[in-house]
């Protein structure tokens, strides 16, 4: 049970505006964030997690402003960001660091329930039998599932995922996404997942937010994601192959071969 509120969020990197006046509210939903590379998806997620400081605007979780490095918010990264030299169990257990003292965590003196939680999280993502394995020996899909387990051990009220399946093959991508959805439902958390693959997004999302040039282009429910909306969002990319008269001037790769012939 959680509410994530974004109010007039703006983030500037020097003269570049990554996010401009973004506002929305999420409540116990599985929300997919769509948009081109550079549209501001990663920046938005990093702001919510506290890894990046927003320039202006507010982020509220259950009515409270979010601070730096927020244990309430679990994050899943595209490159999974696990410690590769140690076991899946150890990585999963690092999710409990925020409620363990330095000394206890150093000697692995976590309470028994935290250790159980780490293994339960691995069970949720179907990796209980592989818990002892070193992460570097696992496949990309398995690694990403360990990443989900670590986020779950944090016991978050909100789960963020930054292109969690971008570097996976289609079948692993679907496996990871279904575990992610299952985990979000089982733990009753709000999930905000950025994706590139529109078909996967359509299959798993309850709600879709489209970002373009740092602003919200659309915010629709499960029936609202029409081909027209998607075409608008990825406009330049979709029409390259067609090369109609209004876009040909903006795509130099189309015109160059013509000129050289």
């Amino acid at each position, binding site marked *: 049970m959680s509410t994530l509120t974004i109010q007039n969020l703006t983030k500037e990197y020097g003269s570049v505006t990554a996010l401009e006046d973004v506002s929305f509210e999420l409540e116990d939903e599985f929300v997919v964030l769509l948009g081109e590379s550079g549209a501001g998806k990663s920046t938005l997620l990093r702001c919510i*997690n506290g*890894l990046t400081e927003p320039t202006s605007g507010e982020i509220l979780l259950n009515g409270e402003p979010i601070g730096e490095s927020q244990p309430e918010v679990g994050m899943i990264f595209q490159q999974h960001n696990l*410690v590769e*030299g*140690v076991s899946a169990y150890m990585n999963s257990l690092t999710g409990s660091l925020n409620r*363990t003292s330095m000394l206890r965590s150093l000697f692995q003196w976590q309470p028994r329930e935290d250790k159980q939680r780490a293994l339960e999280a691995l069970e949720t993502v179907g990796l209980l039998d592989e818990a002892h394995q070193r992460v*570097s020996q696992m496949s990309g899909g398995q690694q990403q599932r360990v990443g989900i387990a*670590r986020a779950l051990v944090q016991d978050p009220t909100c789960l963020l995922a930054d292109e969690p399946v971008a570097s996976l093959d289609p079948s692993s991508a679907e496996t990871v996404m279904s575990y992610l959805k299952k985990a979000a439902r089982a733990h009753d958390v709000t999930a905000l997942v950025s994706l590139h693959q529109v078909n996967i997004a359509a299959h798993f999302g309850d709600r879709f937010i489209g970002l373009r040039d740092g602003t919200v282009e659309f915010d629709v429910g499960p029936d609202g994601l029409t081909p027209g909306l998607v075409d608008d969002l990825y406009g330049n990319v979709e029409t390259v192959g067609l090369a109609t008269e209004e876009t040909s001037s903006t795509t130099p790769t189309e015109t160059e071969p013509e000129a050289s012939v």
Partner: protein
Amino acid sequence: MSSDSSQPDGLRAYFGFDEQRESPVDNKLRDLKRRKTLRRLWTGLGIVGFALLFSWSLDTVGFSLTELYVQLPEFAEALTEYFPPTTYFGFLPFIDVMQYWEFMVEAELFAASQVTVAIAIAGTALGLPAALFFGVMASERVVPYPFNFGFRMTMSIIRAIPALVWVLILIPLGGVGPFTATLAIMIDTTGYLGRLFTDELEEIADGPIEGIRSTGANKPQIVSFGMLSQVFRQFIAWIAFDLEHNVRVAISLGIIGAGGLGLELNIQRRTFHYTEMMACIILVVLLAGSVELLSQRLRSYLREDDDVEQTGILEAFVTAPKKIVQSSMGKR
């Protein structure tokens, strides 16, 4: 090729200093020739400079081939003492190995070797905590820029003074003996191993650090789980390497009186017992060699992670020469 205009200034054209040509290709060719000429000039200057430096060095050290020639008979005589000849079974000429063995037993050289190894192990273990502390604190990833510099500087100063000199400095504290040698190696390890740790920490990936940060961990936890856990294996490998290095240092510290095998070696040299001295040297080679072999083994096992072939200890000895060559070629 043999056009009239290029003939008179053929030499200038060869070095690329003739007049501007019309075609851009010819111009580029002239330009390239000119660059080549300049490069050759600099190379020539470098060679002359080095030759001067080299001849000055030879002069300073009093290098003389005639001296070598005059002294050659004496060295040959020493050689027969280094490697005393004898005949086995009445006819087979070979080195009298038993002479070495008898001296090793008589002078208790094996006990001396143990002292050398003990100096190295104790010194490494005592220096390790400080090396870890300084190594981690000197990393820019852990301590922000101006503040990490103090730790870096401390290690630089320690390394600027060789272990041999540290012993001399510490003699008033511990006297001339293994104890002082251990203290010297402890200090040396702090500067040397700490620097290796710092270098290793500079190369860690940002991803896992961010991953740990995202879980809400505090700063010490981010350092130990996000950073140190990435280099744990490398640290163990460097400790093995430093232990190996310290055994060699302990031998050389013995030569200036700090006990162990080095001390015994120096005593025999001073009394011109060349056969006994060679017995010590043989033990030095065996000791340093086997420590290097073991540490090499451990390091390659840790570094190559899962890909390493699981070989037995016997095969390790067989493949050792190849591995030592590889490591000395810079694969280390």
